[in-house]
């Protein structure tokens, strides 16, 4: 048709991301539950540890990343379930949109969702655990976002698989958590050193692993995604 252009990768991905975020914004349930879970989790960890035995500044990073992972999973769960209710996925698959763009769009939406949670969680942790404010906190936020990219790359792919199975809510964590471990490990050690005021040379190798993980698994999961769609 004269008024059509082939939808580009970026445009399609952004269209799908916007759609997902609009749906999420309308219903708000997932965002609020993830938010509440995050803040509650951070608080509970604080009470679970004896703060006289372990310095809160040593505890904070570990708590941060563990809570991120589990609230991130809450976000990822609903990523593909939104397409299930009336088989909206069929409409996406019938359209000329490139399959990988569907993955990219959903990953972007998930990333923004998780980053929004982190924007609130990181200050919350700083507040509860008396962390130094200022530049270290900004670098911490940067680390959080790098970690989020890896979480989202893996989680979006496995969410696409899990939604088709009988044990969706159980399978997504079971599949994803082994993959989240290098992310959490690297982020945790890097942020511990950062908050302890260590020089960048000590936490930079961990960031390198994070970045390497993000790149490798973004590519691998994008390539794997079409295999998770109906044949």
């Amino acid at each position, binding site marked *: 048709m004269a008024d059509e252009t082939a939808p580009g990768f970026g445009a399609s991905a952004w269209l799908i991301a916007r759609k997902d975020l609009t749906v999420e914004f309308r219903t708000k349930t997932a965002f609020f539950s993830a938010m509440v879970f995050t803040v509650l989790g951070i608080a509970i960890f604080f009470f679970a540890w004896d703060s006289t035995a372990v310095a809160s500044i040593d505890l904070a990073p570990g708590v941060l990343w563990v809570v991120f992972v589990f609230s991130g999973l809450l976000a990822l769960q609903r990523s593909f379930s939104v397409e299930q209710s009336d088989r909206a996925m069929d409409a996406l698959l019938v359209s000329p949109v490139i399959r990988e763009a569907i993955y990219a769009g959903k990953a972007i939406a998930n990333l923004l969702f998780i980053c929004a949670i982190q924007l609130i969680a990181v200050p919350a942790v700083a507040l509860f655990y008396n962390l130094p404010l200022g530049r270290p906190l900004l670098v911490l936020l940067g680390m959080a976002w790098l970690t989020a990219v890896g979480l989202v790359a893996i989680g979006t792919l496995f969410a696409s698989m899990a939604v088709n*199975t009988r044990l969706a809510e159980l399978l997504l964590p*079971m599949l994803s958590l082994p993959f989240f471990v290098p992310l959490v490990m690297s982020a945790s050690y890097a942020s511990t050193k950062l908050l302890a005021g260590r020089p960048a040379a000590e936490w930079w190798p961990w960031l390198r*692993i994070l970045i390497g993980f993000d790149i490798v*698994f973004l590519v*691998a999961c994008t390539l*794997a995604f079409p295999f998770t769609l109906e044949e």
Partner: protein
Amino acid sequence: MTSVPTSAAAPRADLPPATLPRPFGALFLLAVLAVIGLYIRSIYFTPIEAVQGAAQKIYYIHVPAAISAYLAYSLVALGSVMHLWLHDARADRLAESAAEVGLVFNTVVLTSGPLWAKPIWNTWWTWDARLTSTLFLWFIFAAYLVLRGAIDEPAMRARFAAVLAILGVLLIPFIHMSVYLFRTLHPMPIMLQPSAFQPNNPAPPLPPVMRTTFFLGMGAFMLLCVALVVARYRYAALRDAAAEANS
């Protein structure tokens, strides 16, 4: 009790055709004999190691089991790639079979390791790169089997499992790297018992008697691994043929 017809009646529809081989054959028997031979030789005919004592003999099972697990997991990766590329159900059957067998050997590694480590290192477990990677292989392939169990449709099950297997294989280097980095930046406490089999020290050369036992162990376990994969594959073929006949 209903009697079984003895005349040459038409084959029942729910049984697979007679041309498919039975799961356990000569290869498996040979493998079992080899393993029994290994046990006998390692317990009665191999000397006890001077420093570590009798516990060292777990080595003849532990290392071969680890190699067998890696062999099996490589077959899973191979089968997964072949399946995604060729859409062939046989490649998926290979992956499925090798995954179960690999998980069994992996469990042997993870249980024999602590049994060996406790008398030698005075600790059940240590988070060094190799142990952690082995543990994560276990997690991934346990998840692999759970995933397979959660999907009814055969084509989808094969595809999803293949994707997980390939990604899982990609993950292991990252686990290894992360833990290795952790170890170099955080020196571990010195083990309480001095031993030639420290995590970061190379093992001294084995005397010939022990070396022979070790190679027997390698041969026996790898033979068992292959025999089990073959048996499990045949079982899967029989099961799929029966399911098709009934559908």
